[in-house]
């Protein structure tokens, strides 16, 4: 009954378009060697969507080095790969012998600044202070996330200059917004689940209202942030979420299914999130603040219960659809069998890649030792810092490395490693689909329990989060 009321509420709720919508796009890696082109491509695409929707002057963009001179984007130069005159040196000095890596400046025009923590925090604080009353704020991050192993509620955004912005630091900056505003965050980075605490649990129905969407739990790494150049292969949370909001993917292709569940001709953030859950074939098990709220509510005496089927919950529908798309059964025994089977495959694939990593590192160590005897002081980092340096000695070193038998083995293992990584990712994606079915079966059951046993205050808090997620849209 409550679920039906929520769905009716979604249908009757006023459309979310507001003239007072403001967006903050924050993107880029934390250092040049960890600032993949995919992040930049995502930010460029989001800018395009916002401009097309008429929000040209309604967003602030903070990216990498901002307007400062220099390079802040890493990419694979496919033409130069392996043919690069210093590729052997690169294979020896880079992690897992990756070759063809090049660096350039971002292609974004008119950023509002860089993302170094100090400057970004002060910019955000000033921006939020100047937000007018009754504004809707959407914070979209595209970059890397870090995990605080001692306290995951203090996970952080990895910002330029290898700086960190923790959950509480971002929360303090957001506190500068007017009480009448609504804040929504979309965080696709690793360990983003830790940012659930931005909603100030215990103060949910107080102002300003905060809700959001996160790609993974506080302990898991997210999909994306690879050096993949083919945008058809991007499967991060941003890719699916904004394709749903835009009703077309980044290449302009219409989506197979309409994400607009309540057919009000507007795709809300929650609808985009539900679309992502149903159709994303990625390793992310994304979550919204209302879903995490339900999970955190689960009392001690229910935690160990064996989940029953609650087929009238909308979470059950998601479980059913994910199972259908991935040829999975909803039955406990079948699903569990697949989970164990796929878990074993993932574990064996992980150990294969780890062994290859060790072998690659060992070959690199041997080659570096030989290289240092012949070319003392040869270092790729040194060359990166001095782009105009004389390359004669480096080229000689490169030729010398190619002549070593260890190098042939290194390249062969590097190729095997690349294949193993792709294989592992595919298996992790398959395992994630099984876990998604588990999770949504569990959520459908928790939601039923919640409406039966929670207090009025808890019901209001859950509803506030749902309203906040449902009313946000582009």
């Amino acid at each position, binding site marked *: 009954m409550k679920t039906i009321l929520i769905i009716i509420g979604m249908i009757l709720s006023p459309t979310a378009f507001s003239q007072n919508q403001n967006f903050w796009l924050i993107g880029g890696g934390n250092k040049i060697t960890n600032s993949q082109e995919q992040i930049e491509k995502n930010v460029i695409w989001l800018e395009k969507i916002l401009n097309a929707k008429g929000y040209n002057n309604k967003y602030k963009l903070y990216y990498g080095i901002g307007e400062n001179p220099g390079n802040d984007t890493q990419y694979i130069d496919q033409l130069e790969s392996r043919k690069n005159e210093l590729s052997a040196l690169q294979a020896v000095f880079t992690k897992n012998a990756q070759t063809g890596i090049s660096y350039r400046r971002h292609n974004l025009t008119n950023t509002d600044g860089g993302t170094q923590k100090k400057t970004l925090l002060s910019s955000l604080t000033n921006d939020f202070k100047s937000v007018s009353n009754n504004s809707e704020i959407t914070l979209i991050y595209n970059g890397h996330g870090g995990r605080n192993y001692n306290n*995951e509620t203090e996970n952080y955004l990895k910002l330029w200059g290898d700086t960190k912005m923790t959950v509480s630091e971002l929360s303090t900056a957001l506190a500068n917004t007017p009480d009448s505003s609504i804040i929504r965050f979309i965080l696709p980075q690793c360990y983003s689940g830790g940012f659930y605490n931005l909603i100030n649990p215990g103060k949910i129905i107080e102002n300003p209202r905060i809700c959001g969407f996160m790609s993974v*739990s506080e*302990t*898991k790494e997210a999909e994306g942030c690879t050096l993949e150049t083919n945008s058809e292969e991007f499967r991060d949370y941003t890719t699916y979420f904004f394709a749903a909001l835009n009703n077309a993917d980044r290449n302009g292709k219409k989506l197979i299914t309409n994400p607009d569940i309540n057919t009000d001709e507007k795709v809300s953030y929650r609808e985009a999130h539900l679309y992502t859950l149903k159709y994303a074939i990625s390793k992310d098990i994304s979550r919204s603040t209302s879903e995490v709220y339900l999970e955190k509510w689960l*009392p*001690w*005496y*229910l*935690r*160990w*219960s*064996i*989940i*029953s089927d609650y087929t009238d919950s909308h979470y059950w529908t998601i479980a059913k659809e994910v199972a259908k798309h991935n040829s999975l059964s909803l039955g*406990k*025994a079948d*699903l*569990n069998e697949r*989970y164990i089977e796929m878990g074993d495959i993932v574990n064996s694939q992980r150990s294969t890649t780890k062994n290859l990593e060790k072998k690659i590192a060992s070959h690199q160590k041997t080659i570096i030792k030989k290289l240092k005897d012949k070319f003392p002081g040869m270092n790729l980092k040194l060359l990166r810092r001095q782009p105009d340096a004389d390359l004669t000695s480096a080229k000689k070193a490169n030729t010398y490395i190619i002549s070593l038998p260890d190098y042939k083995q290194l390249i062969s293992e590097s190729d095997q490693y690349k294949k193993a990584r792709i294989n592992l990712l595919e298996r992790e994606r398959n395992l994630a689909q099984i*876990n998604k079915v*588990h*999770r949504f*079966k*569990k959520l459908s*059951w928790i939601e039923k*329990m919640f409406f*039966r*046993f929670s207090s009025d205050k808890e019901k209001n808090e859950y509803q506030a989060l749902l309203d906040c997620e449902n009313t946000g849209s582009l």
Partner: protein
Amino acid sequence: MRGQKIKKYIIPVMVVFSIYPISAAVLISLGWLFDNQGLQLIIDELTRRQFILLFISDWAKSLPYILVLSCILYIIRNKNSNLIIKLISITMAFLFLFFSLVIQTHMIAALFLCTYIAVYFLSQSQYKNSK
């Protein structure tokens, strides 16, 4: 004499403290039998540290229930209890069971079973000691 008194109180306290972990152990084995996906996912998503903290927090929350349940079961089993108090205790025990069945909470059912067994053995040993 003093040692016996300490033993008299320490053993029941230790038993009360051990009921939740024993119930969890029982449920883990049952969970494997019934493919408990909910529990499996909790373990999968949490780190070992987080899971231990969650377990300890749940353990602490369960203690008042175990204490109340122990008293109820002790009164039911005690031959010298007042009839009215005994009837109230039986009703409360019935409500406990009913509650666990209604919300399908296997933990409460396991706690009930383990507490009953604990109270049974404690009262048996007390009876032997008094003889």
